């Protein structure tokens, strides 16, 4: 089984691409650079496909399949090996990362064709693929952390790709630092796990954790603390409250980057970590509740901001934050496979939406403000159609990918024992907002009258290399959820069944199945009812958008004017950035500068040091006068000296205990 024993090939291929382009690509023509980059990623995708084929031939007891390569860090009893592992969860992630990643590489050839630094872009993009694959393949928390920090680096480099713009380099720096705050928690989580279980390798660690007694709700034992710390890392990487602030700014990066890193793959890493650590989380109900609440709150919170944004990419950014919230909500109520399911369908439709938005921006010559768009549907037909598919998918239109995954999450949330109805209500209301802001985006961009100068902007459809990935992703956005579709007609959920060896057959439906046919039927009819409710909610969102932007254009502005305060608050994203700046960043810089550096260091410590030096000089200056040349004063000094010497000699005899030196 060649690839399964040589799993390292999958991440190494893009790393080679990154190194080759990074070191040599500067002088190469674009064609060579993209051949290297797209080729290496494509090969990696093929290797991943072969890996899946071989994986499906494994016997159940061979899973998880762990391969140890070399010892990376070791000290005392601690060992972190460069070990990779494959199980069903890895397979899903592997397919999403290499598949979507490859499509976005192809798209980027067209999108970045006219940009400077072409080789640099593809080098970074390949580097990202390497780290992301390490992240999903790692067999212990330390190797996972390599990918975790590494994708952060790639993200930093790509957000700041246009480094001449201050806003871009600011955004890159912010992304890295905010993620580091999360990583602080992640690292402490690892330390605590090692202290508790003596290993950070997934297989033995989870084997040791599984038989433990779960903490009670409200009790923060070791496992709960570790889970909360890991989740802190996840809030950074996956842009959840309170660390989501970097993601909207990350839109400074080129659009393919937003699609790949800040929508489809990297930002889902936090969800992946929670799902990967599900054995621990299921022992920590408090942590689970925290995950669910943060997820639901973020889903709702980000969706409200998305309502009023005018930058097409910003809408999608807040939408991503919101959808990630859904995934955490799923994990928090124990529906891990539903969370991963949504992770996958979201990767399809959100990558599609971003790439389509990129195609719009490309067509408009760089314009991103929807207020200066409109009426594009006829001019860029393919972009419009594919984007519409993505919108239908995210809004939860029946039979589209997002419909199945979102429904699974809402149903699980409803069934949850702690606060299920509130979580469900938040999720459902977010779904309404989602449908609204997505159709608002469609209407503002593609419908109505053009609001730009048609003599200056020559709207043109994108090249085939960009449209082909859009088409493929559009098909996936429609069909991507069908694995779970039979469940709607009372059949099996193939997706959940595939992941069942990882997550167990848990979840509400399995529970109902175990409870007998009657309960199963009841649960099923409940699920159908709720699906109906969700569809009507989405429809309502669509209709409101239709009313406000197509039937009665101008109404939206009047509403905005009538609730000026609310509108400005939303437009300014609840002023969270400003609050962070005023409460944390500003004071820290001020204290460091004025108190620590200028007062403590320069004036205080160094002042004392220099003071001693000056004192010594001054003393020397005084003592110099003792040597006056006056014989009589010398005689006095001689006498004083003699007395001191005599005292010194006889002192030990008087008090023998004083001397320290024998």
């Amino acid at each position: 089984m060649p690839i399964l024993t040589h799993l390292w090939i999958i991440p190494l291929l893009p790393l080679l691409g990154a190194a080759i382009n990074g070191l040599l690509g500067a002088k190469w023509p674009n064609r060579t650079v993209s051949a290297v980059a797209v080729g290496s990623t494509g090969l990696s995708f093929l290797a991943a496909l072969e890996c899946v084929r071989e994986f499906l031939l494994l016997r159940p007891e061979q899973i998880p399949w762990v391969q140890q390569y070399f010892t990376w860090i070791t000290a005392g009893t601690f060992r972190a090996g460069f070990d990779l592992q494959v199980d069903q969860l890895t397979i899903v992630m592997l397919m999403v990362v290499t598949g979507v990643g490859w499509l976005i590489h192809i798209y980027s050839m067209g999108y970045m064709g006219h940009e400077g630094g072409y080789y640099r872009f593809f080098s970074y993009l390949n580097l990202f693929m390497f780290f992301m694959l390490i992240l999903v393949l790692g067999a212990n928390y330390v190797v996972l952390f390599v990918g975790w920090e590494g994708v952060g680096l790639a993200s930093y480099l790509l957000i700041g790709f246009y480094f001449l713009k201050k806003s871009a380099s600011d955004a890159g720096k912010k992304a890295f630092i905010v993620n580091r705050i999360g990583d602080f928690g992640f690292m402490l989580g690892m330390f605590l796990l090692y202290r508790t279980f003596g290993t950070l390798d997934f297989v033995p660690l989870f084997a040791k954790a599984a038989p433990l007694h779960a903490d009670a709700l409200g009790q923060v034992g070791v496992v709960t603390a570790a889970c909360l710390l890991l989740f802190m890392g996840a809030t950074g990487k996956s842009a959840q409250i309170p660390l989501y602030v970097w993601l909207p700014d990350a839109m400074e990066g080129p659009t393919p980057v937003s699609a790949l890193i800040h929508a489809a793959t990297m930002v889902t890493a936090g969800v992946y970590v929670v799902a990967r650590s599900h054995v621990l989380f299921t022992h920590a109900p408090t942590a689970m509740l925290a995950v669910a609440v943060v997820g639901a709150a973020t889903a709702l919170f980000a969706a409200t901001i998305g309502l009023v944004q005018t930058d097409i990419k910003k809408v999608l950014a807040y939408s991503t934050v919101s959808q990630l919230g859904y995934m955490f909500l799923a994990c928090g109520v124990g529906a891990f496979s539903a969370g991963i399911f949504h992770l996958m369908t979201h990767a399809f439709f959100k990558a599609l939406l971003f790439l389509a938005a990129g195609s719009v921006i490309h067509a408009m010559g760089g314009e991103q403000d929807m207020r200066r768009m409109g009426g594009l549907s006829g001019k860029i037909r393919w972009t419009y159609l594919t984007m519409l598919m993505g919108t239908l998918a995210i809004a939860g239109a029946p039979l589209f990918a997002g419909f199945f995954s979102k429904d699974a999450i809402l149903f699980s949330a409803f069934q949850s024992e702690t606060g299920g109805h509130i979580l469900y209500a938040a999720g459902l209301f977010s779904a309404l907002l989602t449908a609204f802001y997505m159709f608002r985006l469609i209407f503002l961009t593609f419908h109505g009258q053009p609001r730009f100068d048609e003599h200056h902007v020559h709207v043109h459809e994108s090249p085939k290399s960009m449209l082909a990935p859009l088409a493929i992703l559009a098909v996936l956005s429609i069909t991507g959820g069908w694995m779970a579709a039979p469940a709607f007609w009372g059949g099996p959920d193939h997706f959940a069944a595939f992941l069942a060896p990882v997550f167990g057959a848990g979840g509400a439906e399995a529970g109902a199945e175990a409870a007998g046919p009657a309960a199963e039927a009841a649960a099923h009819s409940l699920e159908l009812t709720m699906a109906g409710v969700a569809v009507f909610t989405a429809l309502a969102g669509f209709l409101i958008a239709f009313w406000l932007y197509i039937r009665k254009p101008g109404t939206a502005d009047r509403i905005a004017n009538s609730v000026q305060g609310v509108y400005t608050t939303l437009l300014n994203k609840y002023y969270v950035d400003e609050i962070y700046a005023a409460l944390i960043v500003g004071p820290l810089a001020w204290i460091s500068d004025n108190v620590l550096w200028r007062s403590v260091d320069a004036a205080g410590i160094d002042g004392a040091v220099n003071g001693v030096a000056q004192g010594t000089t001054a003393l020397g200056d005084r003592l110099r006068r003792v040597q006056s040349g006056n014989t009589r004063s010398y005689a006095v000094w001689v006498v004083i000296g003699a007395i001191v010497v005599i005292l010194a000699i006889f002192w030990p005899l008087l008090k023998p205990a004083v001397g320290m030196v024998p």
Partner: protein
Amino acid sequence: MAGGHLLTILTFLPALGALGLLLLRGEDQEWIRRLALAVSVAEFGLSLLLIPAVPLGSAGYHLEEFRAWIASPPIHYHLGVDGISLFLVILTTFLTPISILASWKSIQHRVKEFFVMLLLLEVGVVGVFLSLDLFLFFLFWEVMLLPMYFLIGIWGHERRIYAAVKFVLYTMAGSILMLVGIVWLYTITGTFDLPAIQKMLQAGLVVLSPRAELLLFAAFFLAFAIKVPLFPLHTWLPDAHVEAPTAGSVILAGVLLKMGTYGMIRFCLPLFPDASRRAAPLVAALAIIGIIYGALVALVQPNLKKLVAYSSVSHLGFVVLGIFAFNTISMQGAVYQMLNHGISTGALFLLVGMLYDRRHTFEIAEYGGLATPMPRLAAFFLFAALSSLGLPLLNGFVGEYLILLGTYQRHWNWAVWAALGVILSACYLLWSYQRVFFGEVTHGKNRELPDASAREKWILAAMAVVILWMGIGSPMFTQRFAASCQNVLDQMQRNQAQEAAAPPAPGISNAPVAASVPGAPHISVERLGNR
């Protein structure tokens, strides 16, 4: 060949080279540089011979040379190398040729004297790491001081005299205390020989009263703490760095600071274990303050070189914390971090020096947008910065991770505070990087600056290779000193066990808390890195 005298040759070869330089005429600058480089490269090659001489899993001293030197008091010429000093010596011999190359163009004034000083400095540093006689150690400790004084005082920048005097006075204040300690220890034990003293203390032939032990500990510790430098004894460092020429900064940050932490491991812990334990909470507090304080002050520096200098205060705080957590994992992390810091901060100082060579300023505000005229230098700078902020797969991560992981096992609250440094290092490095390299070029002078020359590229490539190598292949290093680190902790442990005749104290074990894990505190070599 050299066999029995390798350590002597290693110690004095640079002195011989310096003598050779003195024979050259001052005008033959090209030959002076070449000879200095040749000597330092030969020295580096020789030092690599130490690696096979220190077998895996062996804790003791190797290649020992023991010769009577002064009859009364009995001072011996006693050299030896173990896992801990091994890589510190190699770090020194690696950074010296790098520094010589870095000074190739920038030193045009009194060239001969400059390289003589650089080589004499190497004698002092290598001697410090190899000495096993306290008096000899002290001698080298002082020998190292003079060349550094001249390097800063003659070839430094505007306020060089102030900085040089401050450096010497600070260090002298500490070394005088250490001298008192050494003499006092001699009066108690009758010898200056480190292994002999160690044995006496362990065997209980000499028992120090708690008060005497604490005072002795303090005398040694203060000298080392100034050198590290530990907060609040650090204010000589920013001045010395800013004023020193590039080569001086590289050696100062790369190696000289490590003499302090090396001294703590070599002397404070094994000789005065109880005092070390008593002082540990205070030392750890100062180390943690240093980590956070150094990082915050670095954050607001308008001067790029000072920023890197303050970052050293922060990074060395990690090392001291790792040592005083008395845990195998953190101790190995500390030793590894000493090497890492030498490489990454050395690289940062080299890069800052290259910027200075072009613009003659360290002010961040004078730069901006440099990635456009000099993309290669920008790439190297980012690489060094990432190594310094502890990105996994680069060297800095391994050391910091082990220190924090090990410290957490015994004092989770220490590790939590220290881990804040991980966030802050990203802040000050990325922020300064942005201000220097990103954006449009704002100063006309910067528009035409040349990118890295061939010489600079070779220097930086060498540093980059080491950074990557140490980040990926850490067991190649850590396994060589694992046994020596464990030995230091065992020496502390045995002392305590003997006094109290108690079962293994909770103190030094590195075993995780869970009882289900076999808590063998010793290194099992066979299962590591044998693939």
